[in-house]
């Protein structure tokens, strides 16, 4: 009897623990839900789209599918935006769309317990706390947990056609 109880407790806590992919933008560490990540690849061969916001770098060919590439460093107003061998693109799958996001580097995958996820304080203009799942505290590290779904489908990202257009 107690055995099953333990199992249930364990299952419950496992369900609440979430895995995040940690990536860096400049000096800061961000993380997104690992389940949203489709793959990680290098930054190459991006075709510019005219008259798009500057953080939309353009589109690229992902095995026959045309995928837009967003540079979060530009979106988050980081000082240095360079494209080198270390620049990686995290391909995420949100709202039935495939989008590539450019980051400075991918470090690791972290499991966070609910206690480790703190509510995000009100931020400034650049990154509204609406787009955050919270802040992850991990010993001496702080991870900004980005709600990639909300962020990429938001109107200001201009990635998704707003329904009001037509």
């Amino acid at each position, binding site marked *: 009897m107690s055995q099953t109880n333990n199992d249930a407790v364990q299952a419950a806590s496992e369900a609440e623990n979430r895995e995040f992919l940690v990536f860096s933008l400049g000096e800061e560490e961000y993380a997104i839900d690992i389940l949203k990540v489709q793959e990680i690849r290098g930054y190459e061969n991006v075709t510019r*789209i*005219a*008259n798009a916001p500057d953080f939309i770098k353009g*589109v690229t060919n992902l095995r*026959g*599918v045309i995928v837009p590439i967003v540079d979060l460093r530009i979106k988050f107003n980081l000082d240095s935006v360079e494209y080198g061998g270390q620049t990686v693109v995290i391909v995420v799958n949100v709202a039935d769309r495939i989008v590539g996001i450019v980051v400075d580097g991918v470090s690791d995958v972290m499991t966070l317990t609910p206690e480790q996820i703190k509510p995000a304080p009100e931020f400034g203009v650049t990154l509204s706390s609406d787009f955050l799942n919270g802040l992850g505290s991990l010993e001496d590290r702080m991870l900004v947990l980005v709600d990639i779904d909300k962020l990429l489908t938001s109107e200001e990202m201009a*990635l998704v056609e707003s329904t009001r257009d037509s």
Partner: protein
Amino acid sequence: MDITDFFDTFFEEAEELLADMEQHLLDLDVDDPDGEQLNAIFRAAHSIKGGAGTFGFNVLQKTTHIFENLLDYARNGELALRTDLVDTFLEAKDIMHDQLNAYRSEEEPDHDAFVRICQTLQQIALDEIGAELEAAKGAPIANASSGGDSGSKAPAESGAASEAPKESKSEAGGEAGDGEGDTHLKVALLDVGEKDRTLLVEELDQLGHVIEQSGDEKRYEVTLSGNTSADDIEAVMCFIIEPEQIEITDAAPAESAAGESAPEHDSSASSDQTAAASEAQGSASEPQSASPAPEAAPAKENDKTPAQSQPDSPPKAPKKKPKPKKKAPESTSIRVSVDKVDQIINLVGELIITQSMLDQTVSDLDDQSVGNSSLQNGMSLLQRNARDLQEAVMSIRMIPMEFVFSRFPRVVRDTAGKLEKDIELVTEGKSTELDKSLVERITDPLTHLVRNSLDHGIEMPDDREAVGKPRTGQLTLSARHQGGNILIEVKDDGAGMDREVLLKKARENGLNVSDTMPDEDVWQLIFAPGFSTSAEVTDVSGRGVGMDVVKRNIQAMGGRVEIQSKMGEGTNTSIVLPLTLAILDGMSIKVGEETFILPLSAVLESLQPAKEDMYAMAGDDVVLKVRDEYLPVIAIHEVFDVEGAITDPTRSIAVIVQGEGRRYALLVDELLGQRQVVVKNLEDNYRKVPGVSAATILGDGSVSLILDITGLHRLSRARKEAGNHANQPTPVLSKEAESS
């Protein structure tokens, strides 16, 4: 394996049969009906009935059964066809279609509609031929086999007997002697679950008569009397279980003693009689109608005495059906899910890209190396094969517009009848092929436009006569390829639209209009939400919902709607659809370091502009004079902010292009050549980009944008306007400053 696995096959086939039925009903000349057509209609109903019976769709089975009987009278010439009867038949077909859809979504069909149509059909039978459709009796309530209704049974039976041609009867009698009635078979079902078993026993009961049944899950034995052969039983059973699970043996002769089986017959006969009687009637009349339809039914009949044939005949419908039903479509086509086809198309697209990539690598190779020529040969062969493969695969998805147009004779007939107008439908370009996904999505908007034309466009016959037009209005549906687009037109020779009325109505609706608006803009008003000029709301249209939906639907497909109308002469609504899923013949151009694709269909010519042919107009606008024509100049590097492009027009190349009937001169740096490209949707993962219709993948794997000519022009104008505004302090800018 479960019988439900076959439901989908049945639904699709039934759907096709219903469509066939409708087609034939519409083509039917009521004054001189074609026997072959009536037979075809009858066969369709018969096949559906068989399938519905097999799968236990009782309501559908009963409806088709009654319908079939009536059709049988019609093809025997006992029932004189009239237009209103055909209308009822069409209604019956619609109800059967509804029932089919209900079963498909696992719901019970609308009972009221069922009862209503059964009564209507019975009434026709009563009124027209004085015959009662016996099987219909009590059918709406529950089971057709409630039987025992001798009153209704008797006339039918006698009718059937008297109708049956002499020789068929005597033949039947003669052969019955040899056959000596029924054989008895022992069918053993091995390892069959209870649910399937019940089904199977029911099934067997339809084939013959189950005399006894016993056993357990491992081995369940059913003794069957009837003239069905073991092969037939196996063929039917295999729909539900594996052949290994069936064992069929001849039952011991002792069991089939005449005395034993005869009472069985009697009892089952009474329960089946009502359905059986009419069925017998159907089959008996088959030879008489001199059609190639007999479906081996009469042959079966011959094994028995006429008396016996009646209780035994109903099984034939469900039993015989599966075979022809399965074979016929297989020989000509196979059903494949669209997803699979799309997957193949995508893969082939990838193959083409890989092939072009290889091609480029090979052509960059040093020509001196040994074995290079065979590599080159192989590459060109690969290229040819890949292209052929691509073409073949693409054609899978393309279906002719006939698929869409074929539904309109019915729509026009029904609508015209309701409105009491005389309307002739003309269709052109039925063979124009269009991508399947577009075909599916164009049907609804097109139906709406057609209804609109019928209701608002074409006048009443008397009014037409008064203005000197033929009484019969004409509605033309046409489709044709125009450049890279498909142009679908709905044209009527009706009253046309009244500019003044539209403007007045628009003002009442609070729309911003002016008397000086160009005609095209006035016609576009009808696409405003809630806009209707019809004085009264009819069944057909006039509620003011719809036209805006039509426009939205077509825009969602990347197309547009244009209207031309002339008072008193008619209206022409054209839908222009791009080929979204298609291969595009493109001209690749270079601007700065970027490569773009122009649809080759839009490119007229290219030339080196001379300075003296360029004229500045009203500030920023520049026009290029080409053979006495002044074309607006669009510099791509300006519109798309391309860096490092040639800015001096006289050093660049002007490509003269055409879009929506207008011509423009595009300034580009270089023409790279023609190529076929696979059109890739940008909106799947991104959004619509102004001036760009889609994207494609080049030989090196990079993405290139396909330009949209009219979009470019709009974009160029918008940018110029924005540029003009930017020079002055504008509210737009100050608002932005405030918000940030």
